[in-house]
């Protein structure tokens, strides 16, 4: 038997290809290993809700697909396959595909063969699930699928793996069983936003126990031994469900003649932009080619068959990309622009065409004239800028205009802000007519997780630049190669010490992201001396004195990343470039000046000073270490009049975004429940419509017009400062001037509380926007009659505390 087109696998990609082939009248056969269509989706747990991500991507072809249950989708597909006259052969597993003449010879499991001119391989990866592979594994206890969660009741179940499948299983099981989930990562961010927020809620509510940063090591006597950050833990169980993902069935695929780019088991075959493999006439669609989303597979199946049949078919993202490129390259074809980007932006050169297309969907192309501003020091924008042609000039220090390194074509700027979420540390201009590719944070995040080389390149450049900007002292970057070679990135968890008092001086540190406190043991008590923010240099004092040991302990306040430069290299660089010691001594000097001023201020005071250590500890425990702008009330001045909340309500449509009552207080300071505009805003990480953004001036705002009220941010915010509310309404309704004059007794502006935010369809996420919509000066602070309320960054606050807080 000979056909023009053989489609192997009836998943979304294969089935879509078959439906298109049937409609276009292409002679085809669809080979399915099992007795039903789409086995992967067939094996989803019953009634599983299937999402139609990504929303903005159009669906091509005639195979129906919209968000719905597993049953609805399978039903629709079976009906379409029948009505379109798809030629399916069930129980036909292809065991071998070999070139023969101009086409292929396909051998089936039962020994039968058939010939085809072209082959579409849509077998997915679910036939090749990743195994637990630990000692003691018993197939009667360890499962890799969960078909019907309702069949399991009252069991102790361990779910290994916190991807979407693992979380969905755990959530479906947790109502009737005791569920523990074992997650290799520190959080559930690998999963889709919906699953992630549901799972986090279940963990908070105690329905699921989660072991993060953990991995199973062995099974012994009904116990799973788990390696956790706090040591080994034994978890008793009745059943283990391991959802570790799937990898391509490499042997089979390689036997077909298809090459893989690396030996990594997760590697996917390289494909042309028409999804053709290195074997001409053999196409790959769907998860086998690295495309795990159903809609992508459907579109690819359709595109491939159109092309085989000689029908015109633009990729689904073609229009989206054309719109993106139109402003900068009017009239150019999408492929030309993609080729241009690949040629001019080395960071993206290693991507496959398809990865590049996906990335470019979230990138902006900019054309600058010489002297145009790209971004300004102090801005909070955090995308990555690649110079495609021309060059940019970076102003590191406004006092020293002669020190203005150029960023040439092929290089990038802005990598520090990308990681730390801090303000831009330099101003960047176009030095000549320049084209730049701006990669947004979400696109960058995706690239970092999927393309290893991008992260490595970014880290490499970041280390070089941090060392140059911090220690360079006017030198060219090439002169610092000795330091750069001795530097490496190191990660620290919250509250983990980076330097311990009394240790030998073996390294110098620059903080890349996060923040840290400097503390010292004084009279048996830890006393906090200072605070280091991203970009800050520390551990330098020891290098000014030959015999010194560490004089203080430096501890990360939040998860932080540092550049560690080995001590020998630092000493060698100091010997070679004596002017570098000035950088060190000025850092030490400014620290000493601060502490002397603080001591003087304390000595001249009659009343005892505030307990700065305790206040700092309190603020750090409340997460202020990652804040950029925090609302702090001095309880020794506050009369509790509530005018801050009234002011907030009055300037924000009657809904206050600050609550003193729900805040925390210690040592005479109250931290009301209000947004702190975090360096790396948690709320932004899973907003499905990108309604949350950071303004160049620092405030993190939610665009009410874009918000769909999904609550992802409400669940993401660790500080509980986002609430849901119906917007609109007159803030002054029901009040009159006399009522307001009479000390507000009786009638106040209608301040709605969280409880009043009724459930309704029009609710939006609301939080503090630093009064961006009301003049840009926080009303809560200006409306404080006694001067007790302040909004500021934690560093300024701690400086103020050290240098002369009014003692009382």
């Amino acid at each position, binding site marked *: 038997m000979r056909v023009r087109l053989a489609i192997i696998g009836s998943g979304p990609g294969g089935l879509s290809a078959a439906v298109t082939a049937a409609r276009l009248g292409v002679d085809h056969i669809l080979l399915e290993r099992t007795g039903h269509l789409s086995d992967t989706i067939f094996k989803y747990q019953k009634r599983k809700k299937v999402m139609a991500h990504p929303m903005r991507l159009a669906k091509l072809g005639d195979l129906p697909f919209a968000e719905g249950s597993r049953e609805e989708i399978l039903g629709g597909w079976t009906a379409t396959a029948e009505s379109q006259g798809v030629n399916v052969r069930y129980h036909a597993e292809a065991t071998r595909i070999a070139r023969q003449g101009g086409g292929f010879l396909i051998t089936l499991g039962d020994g039968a063969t058939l010939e085809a001119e072209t082959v579409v391989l849509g077998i997915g990866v679910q036939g090749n699930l990743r195994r637990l592979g630990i000692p003691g594994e018993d197939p009667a206890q360890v499962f890799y699928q969960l078909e019907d969660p309702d069949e399991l009741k009252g069991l102790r179940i361990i779910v290994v793996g916190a991807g979407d499948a693992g979380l969905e299983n755990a959530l479906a099981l947790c109502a009737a069983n005791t569920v523990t989930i074992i997650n290799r990562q520190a959080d559930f961010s690998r999963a889709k936003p919906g699953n992630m927020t549901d799972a986090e809620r279940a963990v908070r509510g105690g329905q699921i126990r989660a072991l993060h940063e953990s991995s199973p090591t062995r099974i012994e006597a009904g116990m799973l031994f788990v390696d956790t950050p706090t040591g080994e833990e034994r978890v008793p169980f009745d059943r283990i469900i391991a959802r570790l993902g799937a990898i391509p069935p490499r042997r089979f695929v390689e036997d077909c003649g298809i090459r893989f780019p690396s030996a990594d088991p997760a590697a996917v075959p390289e494909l042309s932009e028409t999804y053709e493999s290195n074997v001409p006439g053999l196409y790959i669609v769907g998860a086998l080619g690295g495309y795990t989303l159903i809609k992508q597979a459907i579109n690819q199946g359709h595109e491939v068959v159109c092309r085989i049949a000689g029908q015109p078919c633009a990729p689904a993202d073609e229009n989206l990309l054309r719109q993106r490129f139109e402003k900068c390259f009017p009239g150019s074809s999408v492929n030309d622009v993609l080729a241009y980007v690949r040629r001019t932006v080395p960071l993206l050169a290693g991507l496959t065409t398809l990865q590049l297309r996906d990335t470019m969907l979230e990138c902006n192309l900019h054309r600058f004239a010489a002297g145009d501003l790209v971004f300004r020091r102090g801005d909070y924008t955090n995308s990555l800028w690649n110079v495609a042609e021309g060059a940019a000039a970076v102003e590191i220090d406004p006092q020293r205009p002669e020190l203005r390194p150029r960023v040439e074509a092929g290089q990038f700027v802005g990598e520090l802000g990308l990681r730390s979420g801090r303000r831009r540390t330099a101003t960047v201009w176009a030095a000549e007519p320049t084209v730049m590719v701006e990669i947004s944070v979400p696109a960058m995040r995706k690239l970092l997780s999927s393309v290893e080389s991008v992260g490595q390149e970014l880290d490499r450049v970041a280390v070089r630049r941090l060392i140059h900007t911090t220690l360079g002292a006017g030198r060219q970057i090439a002169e610092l190669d000795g330091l750069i070679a001795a530097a490496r990135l190191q990660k620290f968890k919250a509250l983990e010490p980076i330097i311990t008092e009394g240790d030998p001086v073996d390294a110098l540190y620059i903080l890349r992201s996060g923040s840290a406190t400097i503390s010292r043991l004084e009279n048996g008590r830890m006393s906090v001396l200072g605070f280091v923010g991203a970009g800050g240099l520390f551990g330098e004092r020891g290098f000014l004195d030959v015999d010194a040991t560490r004089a203080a302990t430096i501890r990360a306040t939040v998860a932080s990343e540092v550049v560690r430069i080995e001590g020998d290299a630092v000493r060698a660089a100091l010997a070679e470039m004596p002017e570098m010691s000035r950088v060190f001594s000025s850092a030490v000097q400014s620290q000493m000046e601060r502490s002397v001023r603080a001591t003087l201020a304390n000595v001249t005071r009659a009343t005892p000073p505030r307990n700065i250590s305790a206040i700092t500890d309190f603020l750090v425990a409340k997460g202020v270490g990652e804040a950029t*702008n925090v609302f*702090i009330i*001095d*309880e*020794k*001045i*506050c*009369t*509790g*009049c509530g*005018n801050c909340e*009234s*002011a907030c309500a*009055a*300037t924000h449509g009657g809904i206050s975004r600050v609550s003193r*009552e729900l805040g925390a*207080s*210690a040592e*005479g300071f109250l931290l009301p429940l209000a947004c702190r505009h975090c360096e790396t805003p948690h709320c932004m990480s899973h907003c499905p419509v990108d309604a949350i953004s950071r303004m160049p*001036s*620092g405030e993190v705002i939610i665009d009410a017009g874009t918000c769909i009220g999904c609550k992802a941010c409400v669940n993401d915010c660790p500080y509980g400062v986002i609430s849901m509310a119906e917007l609109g309404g007159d803030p002054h309704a029901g009040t009159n*001037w006399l009522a*307001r*004059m*009479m*000390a*507000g*007794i009786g009638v106040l*502006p209608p301040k709605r509380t969280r409880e009043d935010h009724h459930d309704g369809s029009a609710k939006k996420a609301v939080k503090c926007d630093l*009064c961006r919509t*009301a*003049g*840009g*000066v*926080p*009303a809560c*602070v*200006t*409306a*404080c*009659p*006694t*001067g*007790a309320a*302040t*909004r*500021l*960054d934690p560093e*300024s*606050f701690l*400086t*103020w505390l050290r*240098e002369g*807080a*009014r003692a*009382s």
Partner: protein
Amino acid sequence: MLASMNSTSTIHRSFLLWRGGYYAWVAAGLCVGCVGLYWLAPPAGPRNGGSFAGYTLGTVGLGLVLWLGWFGLRRRRYGGAGRLDEVLSAHVYLGVAVALVALLHCGFRIHGNVHSLALLLLLGVVASGIFGAAAFWSIPARMTRNRAGMTLATMSAELAAIAVRCRALSLSFPDDIVALVARTTSPGGKDRVMGRRDRLRRLNLAAIAQVQDELVRGRDVTPAEILPLAQSLTQHLTMVERLTADLRYRRTLLLWRVIHVPMTVALVAALAIHVLVVFYDW
């Protein structure tokens, strides 16, 4: 904007110390000027506000009173760029100054007419204002110390929990102690504590004394049996004291305005009549 918020001069500085008491100096300057006018331009006749100096002082005083009264509106005008603590600082110091201006205006003379009524009202408003400023200055720190990290709600809840414990512990004691502990601990909650502090204190102290008496009375009890109840009753007393003190502080911070604000309205009305009458008689 952010930079200005970060300047340490505006961080957690009481309104009375706004820019080192800037408005205290402004008010002092105003007073010196007015006293100078009073001495240097004595009227031909009696000091009744009818001379050049009198009219000038009256106009300044009226202007000040109207501006000071406007604070009631200003404090609920939100969203502007100015800071309310600056306005309040000026309000307090100029408010004290206006008393002197008014006294100079009338030549320190009081009669039984509407003019003197206006003066008395003004002095009353200023006096209540001084009381309020003193309360705003001194109470928050004391209140914070008294609260010891708790809120009104947690204090109430804590008190209720202690009360339950006291009653439960008392059940193994004679009936008179059970009754006394029940009476001591029955009020519960902040609403029923208010205004009964002295009675509650007496009851609580009596209960503690009586429980301790159990040892003396020679019944078959050991200190170990008595101590838990005695300690719980002591905690109850402490919490009642804290709670009542907190409520008293809150009341003081709020209630002086019940005098200050209506009296201001009356003052403005009396001043309107005063001005009309003066010009009608003229």
